[in-house]
């Protein structure tokens, strides 16, 4: 850690990980309700459970992005943050809003569009939080060194704020509602979030491999270029069956197939950089999370997305467990893992230590990743059976669900492994630090650029 103000990231990471815990706990409950449907069914019905599961995910990922930005921007811009105090006020406001939302959900206080259930005042608070963040980091970047990483990160973050504004538009016409709803949801996760992902990944590669910045920056442009060139019109793969014109089946199929390209490029990029450098960064766990992120994003967001993105296939699979399988692995691989990577990388600096608890952290990687992979396979199998029985044979929904009950048990098993992995990770990162390497390495930690 070169700049005192980077320290605010520590609080962001802690808050993000707290909400990560909430998300996984509630996810385990949701998985349990699938196999034992009477579990708490009157106290906390499934719709409320799922609302908390998805909202906690989105909020912790965003808090993690904010934390990552506050950590890496001073180092990139080579200057202290404009206002560390504002960053902390921003965090308290955001965490307060998130907790208020969750408590409200339990008491059935919510709006009703998927992922955008936050009551109006919380949506407004999110905008205020975003503006505080953008003000803070933009001024920091403007007074310091500009790098491609900070530029792309800022474009991504401004995009997140801008597209969120569509959440305030809710027309009475359901088809219109859905079309603009995707301006938030798709243009976030298959658009500007990828900019944030790629820039954090590029930062980690510069720091850990020591490969020349010029090389990394060209790769970064290639990755984010491919992401937006494919991803923007790739929105069309959500416009097949919601009342939008038929030509979206062609545009959506073509461009969303190309959405695999940026993720493939990320895999090639990450492994090339590591291979080229020949340096061994002492934080092996952070390296594992970074490479794992590229690979799992490629599988979850790339391949599992492609699996059901072509219109003639999506006609049958749309809104089945195939979608659930893709959603879980994509969010984990692309966005959960990049957060876990930057946290694993940054925490030793934030705590003023050499990399610690590496073995535990690596264990948590395999537990979480193995669990998520298993869950994805289970849900994919469930989805294929469901598609055939319900969409080809025309059997009733509930009847089909009974046929695939076994897969939900397997999914819950995967979820338990993820839950244990999360506990191990939290302990490895925030628990007592056991340094496993000689102290002499500590002086050699800062990456050369």
């Amino acid at each position: 850690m070169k700049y005192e103000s980077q320290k605010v990231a520590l609080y962001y990471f802690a808050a993000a990980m707290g909400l990560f815990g909430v998300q996984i706990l509630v996810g385990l409950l949701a998985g349990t309700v699938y196999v034992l449907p009477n579990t708490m069914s009157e106290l906390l019905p499934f719709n409320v459970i799922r609302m908390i599961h998805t909202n906690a995910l989105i909020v912790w990922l965003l808090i993690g992005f904010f934390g990552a930005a506050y950590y890496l921007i001073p180092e990139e811009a080579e200057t202290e943050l404009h206002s560390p105090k504002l960053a902390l006020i921003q965090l308290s406001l955001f965490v307060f809003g998130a907790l208020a939302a969750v408590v409200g959900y339990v008491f059935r206080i919510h709006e009703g569009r998927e992922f955008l259930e936050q009551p109006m005042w919380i949506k407004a608070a999110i905008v205020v939080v975003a503006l505080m963040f953008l003000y803070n980091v933009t001024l920091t970047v403007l007074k310091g060194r500009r790098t491609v990483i900070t530029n792309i990160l800022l474009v991504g973050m401004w995009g997140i704020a801008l597209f969120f504004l569509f959440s305030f538009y809710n027309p009475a016409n359901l088809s219109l509602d859905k079309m603009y709803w995707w301006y938030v949801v798709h243009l976030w996760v298959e658009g500007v979030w990828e900019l944030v992902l790629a820039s954090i990944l590029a930062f980690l590669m510069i720091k850990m491999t020591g490969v020349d910045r010029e090389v990394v920056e060209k790769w970064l442009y290639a990755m984010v270029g491919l992401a937006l060139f494919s991803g923007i019109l790739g929105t069309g793969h959500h416009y097949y069956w919601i009342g939008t014109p038929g030509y979206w089946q062609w545009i959506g199929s073509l461009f969303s197939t190309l959405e695999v390209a940026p993720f493939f490029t990320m895999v090639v990029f990450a492994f090339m950089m590591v291979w080229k450098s020949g340096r061994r960064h002492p934080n092996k766990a952070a390296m594992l999370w970074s490479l794992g992120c590229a690979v799992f994003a490629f599988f979850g967001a790339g391949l599992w997305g492609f699996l059901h993105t072509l219109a003639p296939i999506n006609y049958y699979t749309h809104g089945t467990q195939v979608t659930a399988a893709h959603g879980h692995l994509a969010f984990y691989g692309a966005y959960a893992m990049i957060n876990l990577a930057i946290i694993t990388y940054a925490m030793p600096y934030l705590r003023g230590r050499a990399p610690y608890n590496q073995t535990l952290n690596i264990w948590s990687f395999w537990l979480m990743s193995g669990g998520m992979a298993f869950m994805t396979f289970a849900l994919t199998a469930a989805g294929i059976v469901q598609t055939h029985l319900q969409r080809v044979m025309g059997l009733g929904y509930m009847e089909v669900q009974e046929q695939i009950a076994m897969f939900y048990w397997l999914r819950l098993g995967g979820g338990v492994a993820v839950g244990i992995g999360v506990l191990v990770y939290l302990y490895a990162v925030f628990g007592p630090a056991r340094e496993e390497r000689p102290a002499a390495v500590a002086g050699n930690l800062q990456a050369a650029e």
Partner: protein
Amino acid sequence: MTERFTKAAARNIFYGGSLFFFATFVAMTALSHNYIVNTSTDKKGLTEAVARGKHVWEKNSCINCHTLLGEGAYFAPELGNVWLRYGGDKDPEGAVMALKGWMAAQPSGIEGRRQMPQFNLTEKEVEDLAAFLEWTSRINTQNWPPKLSG
């Protein structure tokens, strides 16, 4: 990544290309907006009752168990065509009656079966909800879903 491919070129391609694709996307959205309002959905049929019904749908967060036109949670049946499953296209009054009966009977309390909460909807709210689902069932969805089962 050769030397001739400069960083400035990469930057220009990224920003220029992104703007181009975004502009294209916005233009196509505008066309689709027009298509939705005038062609694929029933403009005249979008009554106050339908709008109120959509609000009932949202207020009770139905989307976090059910799908609607395939979007939502995958815990409970698709409802974009539930109006047709209830036979509402042939006997609208019967379908509304059936919906009222269904909503009143929840939760079933049957052991081992997924439970739908009791939402305590008023008679009028159920009628509005039915109007919303009826309107939704008539959206031109390119013949999705493939089967009546949703």
